[in-house]
């Protein structure tokens, strides 16, 4: 598939540009993974475990295999290569072998002529289950005698960060807090889907909605026992991702079925299977102790984090690393101790979701700042301004902030933004009451609250990982003039990357026509489309390739047009179809393209390091900061909240496409609002209870208030255009701001997100704690599996 953009002399970096795929999406012609077909196509289906922890004594597939229309039934023993996969460690079985460790774990596969037959066949497979005791509470997982999920125990990783001298820090005012967050789901509307087509060379062509094609291939090929070049993956249209498509879901299964049957196999999850078949945001428990001097200086933070990783590793080690580094908040604190533990349980595996460890700790450290401000009798905004990180500040890891850090400006923008007009409690339109038509009061119990929160997160991968991005750009003569073609495996999942890449090419090459090739594995690795990284990484690679083309054309011009062969005067630019040097026209670009100019570039971010024994290191590449202000009203009698307005101030570096930027901020803020008020995937003894849009609630038109977006554009040095990654920033502090506003309205502690009506109405007390669990005994800062040699080729930490 090719997307051609033919706007001329418009649509460069900094302009509001309509998405390149907008018309196809508005007319229904855009092809998503779930829309793919290739006859004679079979449909794949998965039998999943109903148990969170059980032995498999026997499996009988004979009735399923005998069902008319069934073409294959596969079990673990049918996997021709490696039987496990995983992003950080290959600990997740392709199909369960003797044991299942979470509700929804794949056990058997079916390929059949219709989806109905395939699903019917999965029900005819009989499994001899022997349920085991399940460990489904993250603190229980650490207790002696708990069922052990893996050979090396239930601790996947522990990070330990010491900054200053937290043990002897003296303070006048101490504030303790305990916080919990639930399991949020990405809830992308597009289901997990893909199509695998067997190739004549014995290989496989896979079309799939994924956030990183190359890392998919690294996991798929060994399981299929194929060399990487026989696994060719093409990006299919993505209906939202938010982290859920970083892990393998249907890729290996569809390929196995296609190779076994010799026919194309399509898989497309229903909504329930989608909830069971992808990773979620880690539930967390967080204990914080803040100490300040009487005159209001924050001198010490002690943070204990416990994250539930579920049954398998996924990207959990990196989530914990992030959470640890952000646990003290975007503030200068001279003495810090952070102890972060991530455990295995028999809950669903957790992994990447927008924010990647930062929203959980933001919820906690921001509640703590409000609590501390109250204890000090200081305005909570003033307390934040006083301690806000700035360029040159030192983080708890010892990392010095060298990039832009306009934290004060972000907070001040939130303060200065206009307030919403408040309606009188009585006599409103019914839709304007909290709970809309469900509100049976006359507004007697309505209270208004205002809350602020500030958060931050890294851009790109951390802890020493070199997640480079490759792009190839070709400039040539086309039928309608000069055309630029961009080839990159970076993924468009709705966030607007491809539009931004065309803007970069237009700006750097001075051409109107830009063609984007659909991402596939024949192109160079672009790294993951996650961690807010692709505008910087893939954008950086496209910009570099364009610069190389400019230099190539300047060489051609020097040889052929300028006569004396002297170097062209600076600056050499490509502008509106011309090569311009020192402000003077040199040549029309089209006349320099007797041969196309094609250049490949690989963009590397600056190197980082892992944690040393004290948790010190240059862990992250750069940071994006965000601040939110939320105004809510709560019907305190009914326990129903209505958010009236949210202000989102974002550290944008440089806004590349204002229209797309606002969309990211509004949408990311909505996901944070959902996490504050309604979004939780519920498990009961490890069994998922609400895998549907009927029972897992996400914000609707009636839940979302106006969002005022404020962009603070302080360029980040050393990054293309000075941009900052902004995909995750709006999701980090919006949850904390909304809950802060709910506390302000109700006067209640509200130490758990999402907040429920019972919490707001005072029918449920704050969540209790017996204090943090003891620090586990681990060999070092890296994931425990690392020390047990259970390391695959995948060691990237996101």
């Amino acid at each position: 598939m090719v997307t051609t953009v033919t706007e001329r002399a418009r649509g460069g970096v900094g302009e509001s540009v309509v998405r390149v795929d907008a018309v196809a999406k508005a007319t229904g012609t855009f092809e998503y993974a779930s829309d793919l077909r290739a006859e004679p196509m079979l449909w794949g289906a998965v039998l999943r475990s109903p148990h969170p922890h059980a032995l498999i004594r026997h499996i009988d597939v004979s009735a399923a295999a005998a069902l008319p229309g069934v073409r294959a039934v596969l079990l673990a023993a049918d996997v021709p290569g490696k039987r496990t996969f995983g992003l950080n460690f290959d600990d997740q079985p392709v199909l369960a072998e003797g044991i299942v460790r979470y509700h929804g774990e794949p056990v058997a596969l079916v390929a059949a002529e219709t989806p109905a037959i395939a699903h019917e066949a999965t029900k005819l497979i009989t499994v001899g289950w022997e349920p085991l005791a399940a460990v489904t509470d993250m603190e229980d997982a650490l207790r002696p005698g708990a069922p052990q999920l893996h050979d090396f125990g239930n601790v996947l990783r522990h990070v330990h960060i010491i900054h200053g001298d937290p043990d002897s820090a003296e303070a006048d005012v101490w504030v303790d807090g305990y916080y919990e967050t639930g399991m949020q789901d990405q809830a992308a509307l597009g289901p997990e889907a893909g199509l695998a087509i067997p190739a004549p060379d014995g290989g496989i062509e896979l079309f799939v909605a994924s956030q990183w094609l190359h890392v998919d291939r690294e996991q798929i090929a060994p399981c299929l026992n194929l060399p990487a070049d026989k696994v060719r993956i093409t990006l299919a249209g993505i209906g939202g991702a938010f982290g859920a498509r970083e892990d393998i879901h249907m890729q290996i299964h569809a390929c196995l079925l296609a190779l076994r049957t010799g026919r194309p196999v399509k898989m497309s999850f229903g909504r329930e299977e989608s909830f069971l078949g992808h990773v979620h945001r880690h539930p967390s428990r967080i204990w914080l102790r803040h100490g300040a001097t009487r005159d209001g200086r924050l001198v010490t933070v002690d943070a204990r984090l416990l994250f539930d990783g579920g049954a398998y590793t996924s990207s959990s080690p990196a989530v914990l690393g992030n959470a640890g580094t952000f646990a003290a908040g975007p503030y200068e604190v001279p003495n810090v101790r952070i102890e972060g533990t991530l455990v295995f349980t028999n809950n669903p595996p957790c992994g990447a979701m927008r924010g990647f460890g930062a929203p959980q700790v933001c919820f906690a450290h921001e509640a703590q700042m409000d609590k501390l401000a109250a204890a000090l009798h200081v305005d909570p905004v003033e307390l934040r301004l006083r301690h806000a990180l700035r360029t040159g500040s030192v983080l708890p890891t010892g990392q010095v902030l060298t990039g832009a850090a306009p934290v004060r400006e972000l907070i001040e923008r939130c303060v200065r933004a206009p307030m919403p007009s408040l309606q009188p409690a009585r006599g409103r339109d019914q839709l304007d009451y909290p709970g809309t038509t469900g509100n049976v009061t006359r507004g007697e119990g309505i209270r208004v609250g205002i809350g602020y929160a500030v958060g931050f997160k890294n851009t790109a991968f951390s802890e020493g990982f070199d997640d480079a991005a490759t792009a190839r750009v070709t400039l040539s003569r086309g039928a309608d003039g000069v055309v630029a073609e961009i080839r990159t495996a970076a993924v468009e999942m709705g966030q607007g990357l491809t539009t931004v890449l065309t803007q970069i090419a237009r700006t750097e090459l001075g051409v109107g026509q830009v063609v984007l090739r659909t991402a596939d594995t024949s192109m160079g690795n672009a790294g993951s489309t996650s961690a807010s990284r692709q505008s910087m990484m893939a954008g950086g690679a496209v910009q570099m390739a364009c610069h190389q083309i400019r230099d190539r054309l300047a060489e051609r011009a020097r040889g052929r047009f300028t006569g004396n062969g002297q170097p062209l005067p600076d600056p050499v630019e490509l502008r509106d179809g011309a090569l311009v040097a020192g402000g003077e026209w040199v040549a029309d670009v089209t006349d320099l393209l007797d041969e196309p100019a094609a250049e490949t570039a690989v963009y590397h971010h600056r190197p980082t390091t892992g944690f040393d024994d004290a948790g010190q290191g240059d862990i992250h590449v750069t940071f994006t900061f965000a601040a939110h202000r939320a105004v809510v009203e709560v019907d305190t009698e009914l326990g129903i909240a209505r958010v009236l307005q949210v202000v989102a101030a974002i550290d944008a570096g440089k806004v590349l496409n204002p229209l797309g930027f606002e969309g990211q901020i509004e949408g990311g803020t909505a996901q944070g609002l959902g996490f504050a008020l309604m979004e939780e995937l519920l498990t009961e003894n490890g069994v998922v209870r609400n895998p549907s849009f009927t029972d897992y609630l996400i914000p609707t038109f009636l839940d979302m208030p106006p969002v005022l977006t404020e962009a603070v554009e302080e360029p980040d040095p050393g990054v293309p255009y000075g941009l900052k990654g902004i995909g995750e920033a709006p999701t980090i502090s919006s949850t904390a701001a909304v809950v802060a506003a709910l506390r302000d309205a109700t006067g209640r502690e509200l130490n758990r997100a999402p907040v429920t009506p019972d919490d707001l109405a005072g029918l449920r007390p704050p969540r209790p704690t017996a204090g943090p669990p003891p620090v586990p005994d681990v060999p070092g800062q890296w994931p425990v599996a690392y020390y047990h040699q259970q390391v695959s080729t995948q060691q990237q930490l996101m």
Partner: protein
Amino acid sequence: MKLRLTVNGEPREIGEVGADESLLTVLRDSLGLTGTKNACEQGECGSCSVYLDGGLVCSCLVPAGQAEGADVGTVEGLAGYRDLDPVQEAFAQAGAIQCGFCTPGLVMAVHDLLRRVPDPSDGQIREALAGNLCRCTGYQKIISAVRLAAGRVNGHHGY
């Protein structure tokens, strides 16, 4: 069972439709009209919204047999040969589209809203579209798109 219906003005006949099929699966799997989306298949998200005899429905909730003889309109039928429907154009221009999976259903719902209420208030827009989920946009730009489209079609809406 056999099914005859009119889709986007064209009579269509499907030779074999399963007893448990919905109008959505008929449109997507039998007729290849995949513009209508399958996000939840239980009537919660509005992604599969189509016109059924002039009324907006979630096609996933309509048993295929119930569409016998019906006049069905899908997102593929909104745009003319060259021109987008004003609602589609407004969605593109207002930035109301990100991943776009909810877009066809929302375009249908907004089309239906403006047909009934040419100049809807903010509250009317939110209420009318409350059955359509979007996970990407936070809805603000969709509301902008509704206003933009309403301004263009107001008074001379041809539907």
